[in-house]
């Protein structure tokens, strides 16, 4: 069975390479400030939805603490996992494993390692071009929780950045911390050390409310020398996309708009609110049955929410109402 799949996958690759050889894959990264908010669920659902649209998708599991993409897709873990890439034995493309779903394949995360693993900043920088050169239309990266530097670097390089949160105060708080860390990390790359430390101390004063009001982070950056203001603008124009997972009510769903507004008022940073993903008991029930909920129940509101999210990002024209 597995061998057939592998063969079919290689054949499909052959046909693809002839049509779209020089096209880089689009990288979508899914991250979160807090663990357990549903990153893996969101990334696997995005992947399944995109593959249903007919695009080829590869999910890369980079969650070190809890590699779970295979379970989420209802598959058994494979020995061919990303450890081989970090040990330099295989290229990333060689680790791609096909799934029973058409157009969808994945790269298994760490699971058979008995020594603690971690990836460094340098390793991530080497990984980014590899991800881009994977032979697929979309590469979806499932990150671990928290604002670690390698995570932020990958997040920065992504074509679409998803930040998953739930309506709990714990998760919302960590989401803000993640956004702050991401903004600082993104600005640090092109900043002179002096300007950067000045910016950090200004942000600290902003938090401790010792600055003269009204304070605007945007105009502060504009006035500073040695900071890349254009990059901050780019942060707003290629925004972080917030996903409100396990939303149980309209209030929960509206919380996303509130978070967006707070980011705007406090940091002058534009983020995008993709929308809520409803809480649905079918999610954990189908995981128990080793089946993804979008496969087991393809016509639920959740499926519709992912459908419109993906459509909005890759083909907004089609969503436009005919007037």
């Amino acid at each position, binding site marked *: 069975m597995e061998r057939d799949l592998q063969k079919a996958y290689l054949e499909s690759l052959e046909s693809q390479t002839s049509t779209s050889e020089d096209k880089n894959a689009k990288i979508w990264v899914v991250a979160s400030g807090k663990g357990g908010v549903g990153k893996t669920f969101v990334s696997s659902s995005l992947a399944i939805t995109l593959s249903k649209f007919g695009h080829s998708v590869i999910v890369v599991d980079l969650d070190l603490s809890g590699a779970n993409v295979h379970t989420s897709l209802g598959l058994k873990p494979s020995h061919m996992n990303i450890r081989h890439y970090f040990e330099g034995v295989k290229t990333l493309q060689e680790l791609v494993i096909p799934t029973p779903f058409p157009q969808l394949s994945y790269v298994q995360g760490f699971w058979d390692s008995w020594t603690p693993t971690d990836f460094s900043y340098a390793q991530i920088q080497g990984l980014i071009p590899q991800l881009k050169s994977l032979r697929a239309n979309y590469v979806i990266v499932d990150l671990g929780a928290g604002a670690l530097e390698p995570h932020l670097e990958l997040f920065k390089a992504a074509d679409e950045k998803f930040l998953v949160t739930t*309506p*709990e*105060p714990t998760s*919302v*708080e960590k989401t*803000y911390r993640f956004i702050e860390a991401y903004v600082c990390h993104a600005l640090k790359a092109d900043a002179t050390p002096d300007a950067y430390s000045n910016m950090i101390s200004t942000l600290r004063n902003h938090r401790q*409310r010792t600055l003269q009001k*009204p304070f*605007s982070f945007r105009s502060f950056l504009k006035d500073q020398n040695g900071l890349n203001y254009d990059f901050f603008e780019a942060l707003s124009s290629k925004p972080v996309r917030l996903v409100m997972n396990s939303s149980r009510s309209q209030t929960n769903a*509206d*919380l996303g*708009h*509130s*978070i967006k*507004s*707070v980011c*705007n*008022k*406090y940091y002058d940073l534009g983020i995008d609110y993709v929308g809520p993903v409803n809480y649905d008991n079918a999610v954990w029930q189908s995981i128990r049955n080793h089946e993804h909920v979008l496969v087991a129940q393809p016509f639920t509101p959740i499926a519709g929410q992912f459908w419109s999210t993906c459509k909005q990002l890759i083909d907004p024209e089609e969503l436009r109402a005919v007037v």
Partner: protein
Amino acid sequence: MQPTSRYNYYEILEVAAGAPQHEVTTAYERARATYSGENIAIYTIFSDQEARELLVLIEEAYQVLGNKILRNIYDQRLLSGRSSLNDLTYASVLEASKQVFPEPKPEKTKDPVYKKDAAFEAEISARNDWTGADLKKVREYKQLTPQRLSEITKINSYYVTAIENMDAANLPVVVFVRGYVVQIAKALGLDDKKVADSYMKNFKGLGK
């Protein structure tokens, strides 16, 4: 605080300058929900005091943008660049709207002059026990109709009549009744505390 010193009203409500009216309203409702009450979203970012200040700005912004005429004036001034944001305050927009649409001068209706009756006045000031009928007597003595009293006190004339009849079935809950009586007593030039205390005692006595 100089509320409008930096952001324009569109930035405060986070809508585009050409946004249609329903989007402005939606944005306002979202903003109000975000910064009032205990919204999780402002936790660890804004203090209660800061949220209240933001709410003041949001309300002010919607006072202008939610009103077609004021929004028009504001747009003209903002987009033409004739006024700086510091001049473009709520008060100035409101002032401009009054020039475009002068407020009709409220008609001065002279209250009818009533004939002074020294004996009745003395009786009023000496009276300690007040009922609805007494209020009615004073009102008629001052030559006021229930409608006119309603205009002065901003209480529905229906309630004015009900208070005079001490008709509990047609009146709201007790605290409101007391408020009404205070208003009426003030309008009639009576000692409102004395009247209200006594009236309420009689009013509650009726129910038993």
